[in-house]
């Protein structure tokens, strides 16, 4: 069993409205045998953190188009998007670039 993973999540550009208006979240993901990847993180967020309107944040397995994801201040496209394996104390930022939250 791998150790639990501590992450710092931030939501901006209106995405925070879906999380009770709180922009900064410090979460601890439970330990599991395989390392956590972004896909699992998103599923975890949808299950545990999203208060309302999941379709405004996610579309299927990935984030809704129009939401920019930065991992440690770098574009997630450079890190492999959903396949990126999270490390302890990573900083993941979700910024909505759209109108509707």
């Amino acid at each position, binding site marked *: 069993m791998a150790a639990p993973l501590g992450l710092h999540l931030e939501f901006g550009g209106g995405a*925070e409205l879906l999380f009770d208006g709180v922009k900064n979240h410090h979460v601890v993901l439970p330990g599991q045998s395989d390392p956590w990847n972004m896909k699992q993180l998103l599923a975890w967020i949808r299950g545990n953190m999203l208060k309302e309107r999941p379709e405004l944040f996610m579309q299927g397995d990935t984030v809704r188009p*129009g939401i920019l994801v930065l991992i440690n*201040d770098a*574009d997630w496209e450079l890190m*492999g998007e959903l396949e990126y394996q999270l490390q302890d104390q990573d900083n993941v930022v979700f910024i909505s*670039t*759209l*109108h509707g939250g």
Partner: protein
Amino acid sequence: MCQVEEDYNGLECKQEKIPVPTLNRKCVKCKEGSAVLIIRVSDAFCRSCFKEYFIHKFRAMLGKNRVIFPQEKVLLAVSGGAASCSMLSQVIEGLSRDAPKKLRFMPGIIYIDDGGTCGRSQEERQRSVDQLKSIFTHTGFPYFIVPLEQVFGLPSSVLVPVTSDPDQSNPSYKHAVDQYIREEQKLTVEDKTSAVARLSLEDSAYPPEHKLALESLFSSLNTLTAKEDMLHTLRQHLILHVARENGFSKVMMGESCSRLAVKLLSNIALGRGAALASDTGFSDPRFGDVVIVRPMRDYSSKEIAAYCRMFHVPSVFIPGLETKAQDKASIQRLTETFVTNLQAEFPSTVSTIYRTSEKLHTVKPSESQATEPASKCLLCVCALDTDVDKASAFHATLVSEQLSQIKLQDVSHDALRCAETQCCGTGGCSSNRAPAHQDLKTLLCYSCRLTIKDMGSVDTLPAYIISEAEKRRKRSLMKMEISEYLLEDGD
């Protein structure tokens, strides 16, 4: 560590998307720094190259379209969002440089508080305003925080486009810049800052009846599409008024490339195709004395969001009419969803639409047309596109609208009223609407007609619109009466 994505291609057929290799991609520009952001389809930039690229694009946009002259007063329309705040930071950056190519205009900031339209409470609005105020005071520019309720106190001169005289006294751009550089040594710093600082205004007071009037106006509009359209129009009028009152000759709007692409398509869907060039182009000269420019039109929303995050540009998210709306709640929302989703699969969508919009040009109106305020739409001040002859598609829609209403009401209408209200010319007026609707319609372009059609009651419109409509109606009546005595242009 991270997996390499070589086998990604075989699984899903996203043809347009090129599989991206792992970390440690080098910046395509300097080839040394490690990349932090992907712009356009596959260009990876490092942090410093991205900053340079961003700043350069802004100045290149202003330099390419030489419309802003030195010492001109420019009003920056800031909504609090990432795009307008990054525009503000670019202006600050550009004005502060000591290089000979620094920007040379005098900015002011305006923020329109439209919390009244979406039911925000007074405390929430005040909180957002306070946050914005701290950003604005930090810049040192004069700022105007104007609640949308003040639109009910506007004079009707707002709707009359002022024709800029085709004067030759306006020097060419290069000449103006040279002249400014020569004179600059004489002006001290105190002169410049004091002239601008005196304008700082914060007039957020409005009487409670205006608040009620705004609420009733927006509740009389049935669809979100019409509400957004009306909000946009009222905002334009208010910004124009403040600009005129305080001597600003240019207004900068922070619309990004992605937003403009969505706006282009949704405007076509709304029936505003005739005004596309001015609605989405770099400069919008429809008001005459005040020109609206869009310097951010080359930036995608991803670039703007990444810049704001990486370089700590302060911005305030303010919920609006469209926040948390369903995907299909309005035409604008639907188009935005469509374009954004398409963009995810085909990353060249937005830039293609943008390039198409660049090819549209505004036609300079002929002299006689420009001086006639009646030939402009009452609300959006673009050229009237409903003034066409009987063989047009527009005319066909009017006829079918009438025919569908003939059956519903009895035919004994007041013939005199018919002649007065000047409906479409076929002579068979049988509109069952209140005459007020019909009056207003003849003064509006096609898409503004659709917005007004959506209104329950036209009386909720602000007084300045109604009085200007009355004035134009009377004038055209009078013109009709004396028409046989008027000399035509050809005589």
